[in-house]
């Protein structure tokens, strides 16, 4: 617990010793998350042709909506980058503004995803229909649950930024949240490529 030394030559989030440990720890956590999603992808890869009496992917995917979802999430990743940029400039207001915009985009994504699920259920592709739908909805659902968590997490961070401004601690929280958000975006790109585009080819 060598803690308190503040090193001003590095970005704020790296200035406290604990902040540095947190960031490394979180990267390792992300490694574990990558394996978690890789496993879900593998499960989907094994089961996606096993549709039983239910519909296939081609029959239910609405590619236009998925493209919009992708745009929303990609843009939110870009704005999440601006969040860090504003933080490095020490601009709390800019930081919070971009954070809120990012969350709005994330919320839009979630809204579309919920609609997508409703559409699947109406199309006779509920989670209990077949191995294919079980694995599809679990993969999407796990990602969606992560996004939801990310949104609530960011709200907590925003409140703390309002209370305390940019300190080594709040900065490392923003930074870690940023890693998480970008990671979810990367996972989505894989989902888009392998599940939707791959499912239509």
């Amino acid at each position: 617990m060598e803690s308190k030394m503040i090193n001003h030559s590095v970005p704020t989030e790296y200035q406290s010793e604990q902040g540095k440990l947190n960031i490394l720890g979180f990267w390792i956590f992300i490694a574990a998350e990558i394996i978690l999603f890789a496993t879900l992808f593998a499960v989907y890869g094994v089961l996606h042709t096993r549709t039983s009496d239910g519909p296939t992917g081609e029959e239910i995917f609405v590619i236009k909506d998925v493209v919009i979802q992708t745009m929303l999430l990609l843009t939110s990743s870009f704005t999440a980058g601006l969040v860090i940029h504003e933080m490095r400039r020490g601009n709390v207001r800019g930081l919070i503004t971009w954070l809120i915009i990012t969350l709005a985009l994330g919320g839009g994504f979630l809204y579309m995803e919920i609609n997508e699920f409703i559409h699947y259920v109406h199309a006779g592709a509920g989670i209990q229909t077949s191995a294919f739908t079980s694995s599809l909805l679990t993969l999407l659902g796990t990602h969606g649950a992560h996004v939801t968590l990310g949104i609530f997490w960011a709200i907590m961070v925003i409140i703390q930024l309002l209370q305390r401004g940019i300190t080594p601690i709040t900065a490392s929280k923003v930074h870690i949240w940023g890693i998480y958000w970008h990671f979810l975006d990367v996972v989505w790109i894989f989902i888009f490529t392998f599940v939707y585009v791959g499912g239509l080819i």
Partner: protein
Amino acid sequence: MDIKWDKILITGDPLILGSQIAIVLTMVGIVVGLTYFKKWKYLWSEWLTSVDHKRIGIMYIIMGVLMFFRGGVDGLMMKAQTAVPENTFLDAQHYNEVFTTHGVIMILFMAMPMLIGIINIAMPLQIGARDVAFPQLNLLSFWLTFAGAMLFNLSFVVGGSPDAGWTSYFPLAGKEFTPGIGNNFYMVALQIAGIGTLMSGINFIVTIMKMRAPGMKLMRMPMFSWTTLITSLIIVIAFPIFTVALLLGTMDRIFGTHFFTVADGGLDMLWANLFWLWGHPEVYIVILPAFGIYSEVVATFSKKRLYGYTSMVMAIVVISALSMLVWVHHFYTMGVGPAVNSVFSITTMAIAVPTGIKMFNWLFTMRKGRIEFTAPMMWTLAFIPTFLIGGVTGVMLGMAAADFQYHNTLFLVAHFHYTLIPGVVYAVFAALYYWWPKVFGFKLNERIGKWHFWLFNIGFNLTFFPMFFLGLQGAARRMYTYSEESGLWPLYALSAVGAIFLAAGFAALCYNIYWSIRYEKRTTENDPWGTARTLEWATATPVPHYNFAVVPEVTDVDAYWEMKKNKDNFALDPNKIKPIHMPSNSGLPVYMGAAFLIAGFFLVFEWIPLAAISAFLIFAGMIKRSFEYDDGYYVPVEEIIEKERTWRGDSKWKAK
């Protein structure tokens, strides 16, 4: 939501009724005792909420000992059942439940907590750190493991135990074939404990990467810390796979999905693959720290540097990589085909090479050493030949063609007990005897230790050696009984007698702990064994909560040995002492453990609305944590000086 009370409380079985009564009486006893002796506050503020890695380690070990008892009783019950042919002590269903809970508890709630506890105690000290990287997370890991264990054990008295084996193979473990809620306990309890384990893995990696004492390069790190690092790495890689497997299993059982079902496209072999993708690395997660313990003990009591340090490190790295590439050897017979089987045969047998290197290194460490036969060393010496039997029979099982002959027989059961008991349990014993004086300031008694050693060793070999031959004669595993005509009785009986010795050995250990607490000579010697080599022995005994007054500089492997060689008399310059920053205790992990336990309980019973509501208890805890800005506190210089003066003695005190 319909609550079927008759399904919840299990009635009518005398064994279970007896345990229910015993549990209630014990709980009442504990509550009354704590209240009578006014120990609630002490327990809460000094232990349950303590973020001190040594205390957390002790709590893990206490839990491990309790679970060893529970799992051991399960083992004894199975041995009693098969002691005579056509026995009716346990019926088939009950036997299924007993081997399932035995396997799960021994591996996940005995072996893992014991080793994580030992890591918690020894690793930060070995690398010269004042705590782990995330002390509060460390406590959370403990409470999640504990909550998982409690939920799992609850199955015995409410709801019914899981009964599909510790491997919980689908479709047997699915709703179609086991409609009760017993197997929900497996899915949910292991999930909760698994999250805790993953957090421990991350915590240990960051601790080792970032908090080593100045000068301690990775290649100067004590071997036990090395094995901790690699084990943690395997945890981070393998546990998320189990997380997913358990999630899908839960979904199948509770939400009617079709991952592993027979109907609607489900694929039961998918579970087998996911399970063993985690399961095989898991056995290396428990074996590697054990190897680390033996490495420390063998060097200390041979009074020589560990032979082949670099090759030891290479060996564990290679073992960890291979451990991910062998999972199919658990189901050669389930139809993956000869080509695949051959590949996995080769990877499996390849593991014998790095393991053999380690064996030879331990032997060479002892060669020409002045060996001292202390209790930890005895366990290490017993480990080598017995583990060798486990390893050789493992190579036999690894040959796919041969495996068709003895898979799923007691030959396999004998094999894995010959790896797990010498590999893990002996190592845990060695570690307990070895580090005990460092933590508590007195040794465990050597004479009673000999009783413990001989009873356990004789018992172990007597119990499990006959099982090899039972297996070769065709006794299948997981069979609750056999006929008289089978001619298996004599060996089964021999094995049952062995189990009595095993139980006596365990009793001797418990008695030893009790006796030593009361009567064993106290010591404040920083190096009670006299021949220790690593940093944990370079500070006071018992270790002060801040670990090191001044973090030592490291110039070589065996840092403490070097200090002794250089006649570094532990003179300490008081002017060098600065206030030490330490983390504060926290009640939040206890709360989180309780929240997970409650939510998990409702999920097991499939009361979804209640489970969803109690999930908010978990979120509330997370929010609380997010807003916590506790910077810990500083240990004042006077307190450190006072403490250091007492153990170093005035002569070693450079007053300036």
